[in-house]
């Protein structure tokens, strides 16, 4: 398949089931919303070493939030419900509760619950107050700038982690421009996030490595500087590769995000320096979900 002169490889992205949840963070101003949301989604690029993958899904207007203040919707994904519960407790406790004027609510209510305020309430040292409002339970935890309001639980859904595609470009600048366009397009898709810095990965990995104990190492087949020394998968003329890793609340969200991202890349055309789009997989043996690029772009 070729769109606007950009080759779309006949391959697929292999993705995995993950447990996901959505949280709504609010604060007095958009600045403080960002402070809380960016902090809580920091160091959350890959479950390999971070415990979870998380990012801001989108900013919320005051009329979209439970308390009428500016907010952000944040998605978090982990490999198990227990691990997700641990990450939610740590990140909300250390990054949202500590942030000036913040409040935190469940962004979805369908699915098995995990503790949100139910775990953090003990910080109140006995002065915390439970309130049931509109059928939902909240904790009011006294803090030094007033009260931290936090919903008692959030719901866990069966999400998808590791949707991806690679942008193969003629040089770093062209590849970066294409990746940035893809990020903008994907961030408009509800239910999907890009957990890596700026939404983009430059150090894609393969499973294992030559050193003992390494569960992942650099993806040599896509490293341009190793061309000639290793079995390379890079076509001629490719000097730079960037990967976009997508986590979604549903397979459809991942599919829509991939379509939006690849669409933005190919719309720039081959003249912009984009050579091809491909995807990462493990031969289809490991992941439950397969997103075939030709089907996604059909």
């Amino acid at each position, binding site marked *: 398949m070729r769109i606007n002169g950009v080759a779309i490889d006949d391959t697929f992205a292999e993705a995995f089931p993950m447990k996901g949840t959505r949280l709504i963070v609010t604060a007095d101003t958009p600045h403080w919303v960002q402070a809380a949301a960016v902090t809580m989604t920091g160091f959350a690029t890959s479950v390999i070493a971070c415990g979870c993958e998380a990012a801001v899904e989108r900013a919320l207007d005051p009329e979209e939030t*439970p*308390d*009428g203040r500016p907010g952000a919707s944040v998605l978090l994904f982990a490999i198990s419900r227990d691990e997700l519960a641990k990450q939610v407790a740590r990140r909300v406790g250390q990054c949202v509760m500590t942030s000036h004027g913040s*409040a935190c609510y469940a962004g979805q209510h369908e699915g098995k619950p995990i503790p949100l305020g139910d775990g953090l309430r003990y910080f109140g040292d*006995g*002065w915390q*107050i*439970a*309130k*049931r*409002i*509109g059928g939902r339970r*909240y904790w*009011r935890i006294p803090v030094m700038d*007033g*009260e931290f*309001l936090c919903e008692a639980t959030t719901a866990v859904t069966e999400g998808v982690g590791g949707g991806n595609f690679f942008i193969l470009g003629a040089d770093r600048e062209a590849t970066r421009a294409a990746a940035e366009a893809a990020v903008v397009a994907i961030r408009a898709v509800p239910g999907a996030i890009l957990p890596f810095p700026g939404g983009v990965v430059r150090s894609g990995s393969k499973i294992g490595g030559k050193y003992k104990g390494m569960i992942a190492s650099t993806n040599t087949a896509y490293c341009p500087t190793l061309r000639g020394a290793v079995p390379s998968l890079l076509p001629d003329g490719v000097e730079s590769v960037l990967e976009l890793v997508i986590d979604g609340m549903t397979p459809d969200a991942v599919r829509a995000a991939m379509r939006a991202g690849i669409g933005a890349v190919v719309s720039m055309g081959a003249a912009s320096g984009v050579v091809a789009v491909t995807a990462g997989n493990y031969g289809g043996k490991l992941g439950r979900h397969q997103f075939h690029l030709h089907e996604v772009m059909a």
Partner: protein
Amino acid sequence: MTGLVLTAREASGPPIDLTGVLPERLADIAAMPVTCGRRRVRVDELFELRDGGPSGTLILRPGGAVLDNVGAGMAAGEIVVEGDCGDNAGAGMRGGSLLVEGDCGAFAAAEMAGGRLRVAGAAGDFLGAPLAGSPRGMRGGSVVVGRAGDRVGERMRRGLIAVQGDVGGWCGARMIAGSIVVGGEAGAGLGSAMRRGSILLARDPAEPPPGFADGGVHELLFLELMRRDLMAAGAWPMEFPVAGIRARRLIGDRTVGGLGEMLVLSYT
């Protein structure tokens, strides 16, 4: 399938105990025995029955008859009382909806565990309180009434009671948790010996409540959520502010080590 309308045959007579006459048993109601004074009689001897109203709804037209235990123990469905109720309306309710278009007597919503009770007029004493001899009052659900008598929410454990107007004495006395909203004036003994829970007031109490420490005026975000929820249900008192989350917080009853609160909303 429609609902059922029960119209009292006589406007006077001894109180009729409607325990067990519930929407979930509409088909059996006609032959159901109920207590009227000292007699056990069939429902259809006391009421004229006819189909009517939405499916699953029981409509009661008491005329002047006194109906006790309306909706007591109800778990689902809807009861509408086109008039007044006697005592124990919605007592022990676990679900469903009970709407009283007039007034109701004592012990309404006593020991209620779930569902919704709405009384357009006044409720008597012991609204949401324990039944006689019980240690716990209301433990869930929501109640909205126009006015109420003494001991509203006494020993309540959970749930919401929203009174649009005045309440009598000892409102929230020995309260364990939950929320009470008072749109008008409250009588003596407000929050006496309360352990936890919140009492929302439109104005400062006429006299500083003994046993309560003045915690100052603060912004309390949960008030915004509560306002939105109660406004949507038409239960946010007219006297309460329609914007702002500042409230004066009185903490008590400290004489019993209580961590409850009275929140005065006139500071927004």
